[in-house]
């Protein structure tokens, strides 16, 4: 009671610069951005962990034990961060968006509860075994534990994306009045869980996680190989990561293209924001866009941009074959999402996607020519590229989530109507600041942990400090001075 009343008293001062709605949206966006990095780390690392554990148990080769041990440590640290950042997510629907929780409870409550019971428990319990139980259980139980942890991560994504896909393309419900409020009543579980968006989103997100982690593993491996070229284990890891990159990067582009068409069908307003397409009619495809003036960053309209465009190809792609197809423009709507954020996020993601394909092709070519490790330039490129899978994953989600605005449930409930009416600007701002400070600390710590693990690994490989070249690149976990 005490602190709440106290803050309410100073509320008018705070509310002048951060409304409960804005603060809530920023807080949710920020906390989910941090959480999703760790959640997708679990998803993407799972295949690596299972593979290394399997090879370790089967072959007893030292290199697989080494790789398993290293990446399980990364997985464990990531999982702890995923847990502690995930719990706030499961409460924030109530604390900040209670109207959303109440309206959609019948639709989203089930999948969220299944996520906790079917997936989260599975991961948490068997991770305990994977981390602490090597000497306490048999090989087979140990291997099964690693598979169950990985399965849990992928199942967790499945249930969470059912919720998000429903928010994009809601169906399987009708609106009824309960306790004096219009709420969604579940009428068809199959329709509600398997919404049109769900398969698109699941495939795109799982592959994005694999791609992001492949780049991370490739970057770490490249760094260690660069410092210690004859390491058998890390050459194996590098090759494996590049193989996954070669599979996942082109697939993501092809799949993303088809996914875009589906978005145009189901959420034309979001699609128009992705292309900054204002006038309904024929749409060009902007392959590349650069701002002509600073205003273009905040208001990307054709006249502000230098674009490399294919005339009418936007229509062609969106319709699946018709150059004259009409693409609905943003001017048709009363209220639009922040177009600039969606437009530039989309371009950033797609641009990175093409960069990853380039790296994949280069890696494939080097493998064909005889060895990845022979090209120091490639190693350095992979080290530099290691965080960008995550950058693409995050910006992709910004397109999805910011592009859905002003709706929280597409066409049904606006975000502004979903925000808590009892929340004050002071409370929301206070917790926002708390989360920002804490999570920045958390992410810096995560990077330091990776750095320490890499350093320890180099030491155990017998690399003396200050041996080899010095790194001056942008990746924080790479030591430049030792």
């Amino acid at each position, binding site marked *: 009671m*005490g*602190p709440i009343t106290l*803050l309410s008293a100073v509320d008018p001062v705070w509310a002048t610069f951060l409304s409960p709605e804005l603060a809530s949206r920023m807080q949710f966006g920020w906390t989910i951005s941090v959480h999703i990095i760790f959640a997708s780390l679990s998803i993407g690392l799972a295949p690596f962990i299972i593979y290394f554990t399997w090879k370790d148990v089967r072959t007893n080769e030292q290199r697989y034990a080494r790789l398993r041990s290293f990446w399980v440590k990364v997985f464990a*640290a990531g*999982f*702890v961060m995923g*847990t*502690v*950042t995930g*719990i*706030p997510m499961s*409460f924030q*629907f*109530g*604390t*900040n968006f*209670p109207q959303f*929780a*109440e309206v959609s*409870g*019948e*639709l989203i*409550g*089930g999948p*969220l*509860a*299944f996520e*906790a*019971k*079917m997936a*989260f*428990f599975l991961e*948490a*319990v068997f991770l*305990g075994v994977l*981390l*602490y*139980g*090597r000497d*306490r*259980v048999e090989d087979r139980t140990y291997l099964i534990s690693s598979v169950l942890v990985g399965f849990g991560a992928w199942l967790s994504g499945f249930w969470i994306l059912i919720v998000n896909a429903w928010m994009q393309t809601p169906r399987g419900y009708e609106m009824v009045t309960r*306790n004096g*409020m219009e*709420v969604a*009543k*579940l*009428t*068809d*579980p199959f329709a509600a869980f398997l919404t049109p968006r769900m398969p698109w989103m699941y495939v795109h997100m799982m592959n994005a996680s694999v791609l992001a982690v492949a780049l991370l593993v490739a970057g770490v491996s490249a760094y260690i190989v660069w410092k210690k070229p004859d390491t058998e284990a890390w050459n194996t890891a590098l090759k494996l990561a590049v193989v996954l990159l070669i599979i996942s990067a082109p697939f993501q582009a092809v799949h993303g293209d088809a996914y875009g068409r589906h978005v145009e069908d189901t959420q034309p307003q979001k699609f128009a924001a992705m292309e900054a397409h204002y006038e309904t009619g024929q749409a060009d495809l902007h392959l590349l866009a650069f701002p002509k003036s600073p205003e273009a960053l905040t208001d990307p309209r054709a006249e502000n941009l230098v674009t490399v465009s294919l005339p009418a190809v936007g229509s062609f792609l969106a319709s699946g074959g018709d150059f004259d197809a009409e693409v609905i423009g943003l001017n048709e709507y009363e209220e639009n999402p922040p177009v600039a954020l969606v437009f530039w996020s989309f371009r950033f993601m797609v641009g990175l996607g093409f960069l990853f394909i380039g790296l994949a092709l280069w890696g494939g070519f080097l493998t064909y020519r005889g060895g990845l490790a022979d090209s120091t330039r490639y190693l350095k490129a992979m080290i530099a590229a290691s965080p960008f899978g995550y950058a693409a994953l995050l910006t992709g989600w910004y397109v999805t989530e910011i592009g859905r605005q002003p709706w929280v449930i597409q066409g049904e409930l606006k975000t502004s109507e979903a925000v*808590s009416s*009892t*929340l004050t600007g002071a*409370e929301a701002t206070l*917790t926002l600041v708390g989360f920002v400070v*804490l999570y920045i600390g*958390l992410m810096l*710590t995560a990077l*330091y*942990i990776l750095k*320490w693990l890499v350093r320890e690994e180099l030491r155990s490989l017998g690399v003396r400090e200050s041996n080899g070249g010095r790194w001056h690149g942008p990746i924080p976990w790479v030591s430049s001075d030792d």
Partner: protein
Amino acid sequence: MTDPLLPVDAYLVESLPEIWFGAVLFALGMYVVLDGFDFGIGMLYATRTDERERETFLAAFGPVWDANEVWVVAFGTMLLAAFPRVYSRLLADNYLLALGFVLALVFRGLGPELREQRDDERWKRYTDYAFIGGSVFAPLLLGMLAGRWLFGGATLPVALTGVALVAVSIVTGAAFLATKTEPGLASELRAYGIGATLAYLGGVVVLLGTVVLTDAGGAADAMLSLPVAAVVALSVAVGLGGSGLARRGRYRAWLASALALPTLLTIMVAILLYPTIYPPTGLLVREAVVSPLALNLVTVLGFPVLLLVLWYFKFLYGVFSGPIEGEGYGG
């Protein structure tokens, strides 16, 4: 629009809403019992200065805390799935308490994980602060949240509920650790455990008296009802009996009785709530519950999994049963 597999207009069994009320409180109880002893470990950790003893505590905590913590997510999401309005109001009306609680969990979870990453005294000290601070504030704020759920805005009963949860967490933490450590350390822990038991029982009696005298949240009558009286009497008996077992060095039996205390506390919460589920607005279980199809669905898909989860826990605690053998947090 009908679903042939599940009844659409009627609950699978007539009392399904009440069963779900029980299921949601069961998840809360599992959380309070299991993560409760984790919090207790964290608080008792503050009494240790010897590095080896601290490592022993962390080794007891390491393999199980993350799985224990998931019960709070199970509680929250089950509440959302069955009683969305209660989930919404409880969290939105207690914004700072709820988010304070989850932030305390962040510190508590990260502390030990970060501690093992560096062999540096200052680093260890700071990560220990995070672990201990989080372990104190998480049960305190969760207890206060439960107090607000039961009694609304009344300050003293809310604070007492928080303190009671802190005290009972120390009891279970001490009993859990006593089964895992060598006799010398166990007998020191026993002293803390017995002290916390007395504090807890005293706190519950004061809470009861305060609510009866001030009629906080209109709960005076419920507090004086026979079921609550029985639960309180049982708690006193179990608490004192458990302390007796602890004195005789029968730690496993003490642990069993200690775990009964938070269980009884959760049962008391359930009795005080029912038949309403959100006393501050007088909302009844039957008014708050979702429609039959939605509840039937989460029952059919969720309950078998809940049984499976209980089996996982049996397996997990089986693997890590017995005393700690000198391994640190990192295993």
